[in-house]
C-alpha cells in the first residue's frame, strides 16, 4: 500500500528549493556561450511562459473533467482566465516542435500572440526580448540552445500547475531567486542595482505599510521592494487593499518587473517604463506628480548622467531646493521622492551612499533645507559589503512629511551583521534591533543618538554618523606606576635570558 501512496506524496509536496534548483539548472544551457546579463532575460521570460501555459492547461483539464470533451465550450469558458493563451502560443506547442528549426522565431511569435491576447496587462512587455536574436549565436547554435531550454523547462520538476505547486508565491519566489542569483554571480552587470533582500525587508518594515496605502518605487528594478511592502499589508491586515506603483528606466528590467508582479499575483499595479528624473510617468489627472503614502527606492549610487541638463527647467520644480551636481544623481532621486510624498501620511525610505550625508556645495545646501524643513527623520548606517557588485557601506534615510518632533535619530548599525566571504548579511536580530530603536526613538549608547536641529546646525549640517554616534570604546585609565614596574621586570627578564643564552652558546662552542 505504501508503495502506491509514496510517489503521489512526493509529487504533491514540492519544495521551493526543488523548483529553485531546477530553474537554476536550466541556466546551464547558456553558461559559457552567452553572458548572464543576456540569458537572464531568456530564462525569466521562459519561466513566465511556462507558468501561464501550465495554469492554462490545469484549468483546461479541470473543465474537461467537469464538462466532458467539448472543445468549443471549454474554449469559451477559458476566455475569462487571468491570462488568455492562444493554442499555438502554449509552451507545449513550442516544446513539441523543438526539433524543427526556427525555435527562436516560433517563441517570439508565441510571446507576441500572448501579448496581443492580453493587451491590457502585457502591453509591450515582450518588445525588448527576442529569442530569435543573434546574441544566442548562429542559426544552428540558436536552435540548439533553445531546444535545450525548452527541454529543461519541460522537466517534471518544473511542472508549475496549481494542483502541484499550491500557492502562487512559490513561482514568484523562484523568479526572485533567479534575479537574486544573477545579481550575486555577475554583480552590477546583470543585477544592475539589486537590493539585498534583508535591506528591502528592513525598509518595508520601517515604512509600516497600512491597508489603503499607495506605495511607489521610482527606481523599482525588478519590483521586489514594492512587493515586500505589499506582502507586509497582506500578512498584517489580511487585506489586499493597496496599490503598487513603480517606474523603471531599463526596458528589459521593466518587463521583468511586470512579469514578477503577475507571478506574485500582484495584478493591481502600475509599473511605467521611463527615466524617473527626465520623464516621470506617474502623474495624476492634472499632469502633476502623483503623491503616495509610501515612497521607497534604492536608486543607482551617484549616477553620473542623471539628467542635469534639464533640471533647471524641471516642469515639476522638483529641484527648487537646489540642483544636484552635474555628475552625482543621488539628491535628484531624493528630491523626486520628497516631491511625491503625500502631505499628511507621506513617508519615504531611500538607500544612499555615505557621500550623501556629508558632501558639501550644492548637496550641502539641499541637505540643509531638508533638515530645516524638518523632513529628515532617521539616518541608519548599514554595514559594508551588503550590496552586490560594490563593497561600499550604504545608509538608509527615512523622511516624513509630518514628524512627531524636530529631531533626527542617528543609528550606527554598521557593526551588526553576519560576515560572509564576499557578502555580508543582516540577520533577523540586526533588523529587529534597528526597528526597535527607530520605534523607541531614544538614544542607545554606542548605537543611536537623537540629535536636535541645533546640534546638526552646529555640525554645519554634516550628517556623517560618527559625529553623532560615538562608538569609541572608553579605555580603562592606564596606571603609569604599574606600567613602569612592568618595564623593570621585563628588563630583568631580558638580562636573565641573555645570560642563559650566552651559556648555551658557550656549551655549543661559540664564545
Amino acid at each position, binding site marked *: 500500500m505504501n508503495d502506491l501512496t509514496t510517489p503521489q506524496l512526493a509529487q504533491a509536496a514540492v519544495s521551493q528549493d526543488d523548483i529553485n534548483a531546477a530553474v537554476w539548472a536550466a541556466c546551464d544551457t547558456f553558461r559559457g556561450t552567452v553572458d548572464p546579463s543576456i540569458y537572464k532575460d531568456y530564462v525569466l521570460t521562459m519561466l513566465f511562459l511556462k507558468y501561464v501555459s501550465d495554469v492554462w492547461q490545469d484549468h483546461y483539464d479541470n473543465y474537461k473533467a467537469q464538462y466532458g470533451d467539448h472543445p468549443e465550450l471549454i474554449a469559451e469558458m477559458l476566455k475569462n482566465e487571468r491570462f488568455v493563451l492562444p493554442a499555438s502560443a502554449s509552451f507545449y506547442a513550442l516544446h513539441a516542435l523543438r526539433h524543427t528549426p526556427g525555435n527562436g522565431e516560433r517563441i517570439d511569435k508565441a510571446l507576441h500572440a500572448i501579448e496581443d491576447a492580453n493587451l491590457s496587462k502585457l502591453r509591450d512587455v515582450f518588445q525588448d526580448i527576442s529569442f530569435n536574436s543573434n546574441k544566442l549565436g548562429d542559426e544552428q547554435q540558436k536552435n540548439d540552445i533553445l531546444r535545450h531550454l525548452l527541454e529543461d523547462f519541460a522537466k517534471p520538476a518544473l511542472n508549475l500547475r496549481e494542483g502541484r505547486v499550491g500557492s502562487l508565491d512559490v513561482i514568484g519566489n523562484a523568479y526572485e531567486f533567479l534575479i537574486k542569483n544573477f545579481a550575486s554571480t555577475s554583480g552590477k552587470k546583470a543585477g544592475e542595482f539589486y537590493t539585498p533582500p534583508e535591506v528591502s525587508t528592513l525598509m518595508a518594515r520601517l515604512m509600516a505599510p497600512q491597508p489603503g496605502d499607495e506605495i511607489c518605487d521610482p527606481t523599482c528594478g525588478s519590483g521586489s521592494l514594492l512587493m515586500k511592502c505589499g506582502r507586509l499589508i497582506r500578512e498584517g491586515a489580511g487585506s489586499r487593499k493597496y496599490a503598487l506603483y513603480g517606474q523603471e528606466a531599463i526596458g528589459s528590467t521593466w518587463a521583468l518587473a511586470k512579469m514578477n508582479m503577475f507571478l506574485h499575483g500582484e495584478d493591481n499595479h502600475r509599473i511605467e517604463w521611463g527615466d524617473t528624473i527626465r520623464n516621470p510617468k506617474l502623474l495624476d489627472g492634472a499632469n502633476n506628480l502623483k503623491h503616495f503614502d509610501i515612497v521607497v527606492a534604492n536608486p543607482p549610487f551617484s549616477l553620473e548622467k542623471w539628467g542635469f541638463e534639464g533640471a533647471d527647467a524641471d516642469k515639476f520644480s522638483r529641484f527648487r531646493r537646489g540642483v544636484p551636481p552635474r555628475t552625482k544623481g543621488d539628491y535628484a532621486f531624493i528630491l523626486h521622492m520628497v516631491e511625491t510624498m503625500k502631505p499628511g501620511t507621506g513617508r519615504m525610505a531611500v538607500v544612499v551612499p555615505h557621500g550623501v550625508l556629508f558632501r558639501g556645495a550644492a548637496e550641502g545646501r539641499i541637505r540643509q533645507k531638508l533638515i530645516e524643513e524638518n523632513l529628515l527623520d532617521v539616518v541608519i548606517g548599514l554595514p559594508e559589503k551588503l550590496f552586490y557588485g560594490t563593497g561600499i557601506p550604504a545608509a538608509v534615510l527615512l523622511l516624513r512629511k509630518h514628524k512627531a518632533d524636530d529631531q533626527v535619530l542617528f543609528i550606527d548599525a554598521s557593526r551588526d551583521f553576519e560576515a560572509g566571504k564576499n557578502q555580508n548579511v543582516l540577520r533577523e536580530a540586526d533588523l529587529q534591533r534597528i526597528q526597535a530603536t527607530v520605534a523607541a526613538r531614544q538614544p542607545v549608547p554606542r548605537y543611536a543618538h537623537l540629535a536636535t536641529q541645533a546640534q546638526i546646525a552646529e555640525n554645519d549640517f554634516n550628517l556623517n554618523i560618527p559625529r553623532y554616534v560615538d562608538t569609541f570604546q572608553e579605555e580603562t*585609565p*592606564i596606571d603609569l606606576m604599574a606600567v613602569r614596574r612592568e*618595564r623593570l621586570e621585563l628588563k630583568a*627578564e*631580558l638580562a636573565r*635570558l641573555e645570560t642563559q643564552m650566552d651559556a648555551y652558546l658557550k656549551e*655549543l662552542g661559540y664564545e
Partner: protein
Amino acid sequence: MIDANLFSLSQTTAVQSGYPFRGTIEGAQDGGVIALQMKDVDPESGIAWAGALRTHLPGRKGPSWLQPGDLLFVAKGARFYAVVVDTPPMPSVCGPAFFHLRVQPGVAVEPAFLAWQINQPPFQRLLMQSAEGSGQLSIRRPVLEALPLAVPPLSQQHRIVALDRAARAERATLRRLIQNREQQLHALAEALSAASMRSQQATRP
C-alpha cells in the same frame, strides 16, 4: 664547531599524510575527535587546541592519531614549517594540508630539534626549491622524505632546543616592552587632552 651527521629525513622520521578529509570538515559539538586545520597552527606559538574543530571521523580506516612528540609539517601554502605536537586533549588527527611526522624508534633525534631545523633558512631554501604547484605551492611526500638533515649528538640537540626556547621568550619579552612603551605614550596623550578639555570648560562664561 658542532659535529653532525647527514641523514635524509626519511632515515630518521616516518612521514604520513594527514587524514584525507574530503572537502570541508563537518564540525560536531559532541564529536570525539579533534581535526587540526591550518588555522590551528602557528610557527611561533604552536598548536591552539582550544579553537580546533571537533568532529566524527567518517572513514573506516584507522587514522594515524597524533601523539606527544610528533611533528606537524605544513606542506601547503605561503610558508612551509613544522611544529611539535604537545599533549592532545583528546584523540586527534591532522587535515590533509599537513604531513604527520614521527621520529622513528631508536633514532637519536629530539623532535623539537627536528622542528627547529626544518624552520631554519638552510632547510627552508631546500623546501622552496622543491615546492611545486601553479595555484598554491606544495611539497610532495617523496620530496620531503629525500631532503637532508644535519643531526648532531643528542646533548648538542638539547642545547640548541633550549637556546631556541630562550630566544622565543626573548622575542615575547621584547614585544611586551614595545607595548609597555606604547601604553606610556597613550597615557600621556590621554592626560594631555583631558587637561585641555578641563581648562576649556573652565574658561567658558
